[in-house]
């Protein structure tokens, strides 16, 4: 199976570990992934509230490029990119006036947008296209004895639930079990990680992140596993600030592609394990 890949700015920046582990795992699974040439920033959720037409055109450009080169699905690992691209598809389908403006704008750039391409999430591809049985064949070093808390964040399940349930998503839980680890029962799977508030209103943002990491630790999770670069950054990056404001928790935050890579026996260096601020060394040593 072949896919196009839309990295987005995070996976080239703070979320580089996500890109490295994603590419490594997909390569190992024999899934050919080709980065979209000349992709541009997706505008993230902020731009849409500033200027809807321009933001749809900006995100729509990526979709037009994807459609131009082939009819393959395009994978957008970052939750924000995944949400924005899906929202653009839906918005342009339901709003003919907006669609006319965006299509004309893209025509001026020599692109023509039809809206046929499907935007996919890597987790959806792993669980639904590849399937847990096939994945099991690749698991050479199951992460026995490790307990992970699955954190989905918000954008992958709200406002649209595309490949999982809105209230109680389970695809990542299945992946954690597939890699041989234990999935901690954790009701805060989709509770807000603070998002951009950690930067703009720290007294609110940090408290939200603190609640998540505290409860995960309390329920015995060795690490939190997530699928969104911003959540990973909020939970992993601010633990010093949280420690000074509340209490020290110290729990690493890994990407689901990283733990899958480890279970498939891929070297840590290829999975960007070292990039985490809270070191996962101790936790992973036990495997």
């Amino acid at each position, binding site marked *: 199976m072949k896919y196009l890949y839309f990295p987005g700015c995070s996976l080239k920046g703070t979320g580089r570990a996500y890109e490295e582990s994603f590419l490594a795992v997909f390569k190992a699974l024999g899934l050919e992934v080709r980065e979209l040439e000349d992709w541009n920033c997706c505008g993230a959720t902020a731009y849409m509230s500033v200027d809807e037409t321009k933001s749809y055109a900006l995100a729509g450009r990526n979709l037009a490029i994807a459609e131009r080169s082939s009819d393959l699905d395009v994978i957008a690992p970052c939750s924000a990119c995944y949400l924005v691209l899906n929202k653009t598809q839906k918005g342009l389908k339901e709003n003919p006036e907006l669609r006319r403006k965006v299509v004309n704008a893209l025509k001026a750039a020599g692109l023509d947008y039809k809206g046929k391409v499907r935007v996919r999430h890597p987790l959806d591809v792993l669980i639904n296209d590849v399937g847990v049985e096939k994945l099991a064949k690749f698991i050479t070093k199951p992460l026995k004895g490790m307990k992970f808390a699955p954190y989905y964040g918000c954008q992958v399940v709200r406002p649209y639930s595309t490949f999982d*349930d809105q*209230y*109680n998503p389970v695809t990542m839980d299945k992946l954690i079990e597939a890699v041989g680890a234990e999935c901690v*029962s954790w*009701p*805060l799977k989709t509770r807000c990680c603070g998002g951009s508030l950690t930067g703009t209103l720290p007294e609110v943002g940090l408290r939200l992140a603190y*609640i998540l990491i505290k*409860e995960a630790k309390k329920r015995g999770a060795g690490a939190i596993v997530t699928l969104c670069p911003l959540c990973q950054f909020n939970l992993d990056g601010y633990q010093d600030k949280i420690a000074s404001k509340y209490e020290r928790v110290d729990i690493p935050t890994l990407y689901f592609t990283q733990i899958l890579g480890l279970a498939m026996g891929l070297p840590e260096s290829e999975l960007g394990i070292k990039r985490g601020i809270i070191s996962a060394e101790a936790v992973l040593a036990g495997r």
Partner: protein
Amino acid sequence: MSENKPKQENLPRVGFYICHCGSNIASMIDVAEVQKYASGLPGVAVSRDYKYMCSDPGQEMIAKDIREHKLERLVVAACSPNLHEETFRKAAARGGLNPFYFQMVNIREHAAWVHEDKKSATEKAKDLARAAIARVRFHQALDKKRVPVDPNVLVVGGGIAGIHAALTLANAGKKVTLIEREATIGGHMAMFDKTFPTLDCAACILTPKMSAVKAHPNITLLTYSEVNKVEGYVGNYKVTVKRKPRYVKEDLCVGCMECIDACVFKEAKFPDKFNQGLGKRKPVYIDFPQATPKVVLLDPETCIELKTGKCKKSCAAACDRKAFDFNQKEEIKELQVGAIVLATGFKAFDAKRSPQYGYGRYPGVYTALEIERLVNASGPTSGEIVLRDGKHPKAVGIIHCVGSRDAKTNKWCSRVCCMYSLKLAHLIKEHSGAEVYNFYIDMRAPGKAYEEFYDKLLGEGVHFIRGRVDEVTDWAMTPDEEGKLVLRVEDTLAGFVRRIPVDMVVLSTGLEPQADAQEVRRRFNIGCGSEGFFQERHPKLAPVNTFTDGIYIAGACQAPRDIPDTVAQAGAAAAEALALIDAGFVELEPNTSHVVEEECCGCKSCVPLCPYSAITFDEVKKKAVINEVLCKGCGVCAAACPSGSIRQNLFEDDEIFSEIQGILK
């Protein structure tokens, strides 16, 4: 190739009447203008408008006009034929005119009520009137066919609705067959502990009726059976019934239950469906003590003998009446009945479809039916409110409208879950003394003594919080939430989000159609809404009838309904069936089709078209023949006869062509 316009002079004399329907029609259609316009149309001898055509004076006016003006045709422009076609046919007959020389024009439901511009609505009324006046010229005199009605009745579904209907019919002296899919009758009601608003114990008021059914000479009770096929037509239905094997002979077993004790499985191991899986049962079991018929049955999935054939069959050995029969097979029975009452009941909403409430994830979350079993003295915990981990809950939260009034699941209000939530609140408080919180959106207590019951609960100190619970979580935000289930809810009266920690959560799941509603309604050839509730002929005027004559519906299969209304409907359905049977005959609409023998070339094109095999081919005469009694009058063969040799009464080609011509002038 001449046009079929009859000559001007020999046109039959037509009486045209347009109804004001109070202001329903007159407010949007200029009835005087239509009346005047119609009076000028060829053949119209009398043209009147009147405030209420369907009233007695209205009908009397028609009868008088027919006699005085020697009218030969009648056209009434008013409401839908589905409403008053019969009324005006009878009026025509009273005037001495064949009732089928009449054509109705729908200018209320199809015009006055749905248009906003008086000019175009009046224009439309004139077109439709002209079409009917053109059409009625070609009407033929017809008369309804009478067909005898079989006096036996079939009642499908052994819940309280089916039980009450069957008893009412049997007490009226009719032979009734009551069919129930489960091993015992009693339906959902048998599972309840008490019933609102009087707190009668469900078993106390239901068991006498169940034993009355068992004892009644006129009722044949077929449990563990399903209807496979329905053929025939009103008054003459042939029903095929499939009886699943119990592996126990019903006439021998007296329900002493000694076989259950003797079963090789020492303790009960398998989830007991009747107790919503809370209790356990053995492969040989009986649903509940008052099960009717009081006969055990074997579960082929778990009984070793049935699965492997290698069991010492201690159950059979213990049975001195030798009631066991391990190779009992599925049995097919045929019934002849004149009327059928469908009382197939409802299915409770599956709480797992609202994952935010955590049913199936948190052991402390129960469905209302599970609580009905817990508070029930003959339930798995003999009435003791106890959690799955054995502890007694100090605080219980009851969430109303689970799955109901929700765009994501079921849009409709389930009508009973407010009242049974109040009842459960009372029972839980009474049995366990716990603090009880009811989370509701609107407290709906519309029935007799319902509001008073709600007041009683308020008096008993139950906490009522108005708001839709957002989620049930075991995440403790504060120390006093540790180990509890926390309900997060926006209290719309207090105006802020609250977190209520409780030990047990009860989900008041709503009512929805049975899972197989679509197949069942196709089997009985009745309609149903897209969600699956059976379609009544008219929501107000014929709530227990269906569009198929002879088939009636009662209870929650038609819409969510509480027990009092269900029993009332069951009585109504029984009355409708009795009316049909006691008439002794049924009049079939005469709009059947017939082959004109000398015109038929014997091409057999029509023969395979009839789903009721009413069309056969006479090999001697080499002509197609239609059996008028089997013909249901759909007209498919009339449209398909390539040489135009089949006519459908009341819908002949001339009549429809003239209607088209009338509309388009």
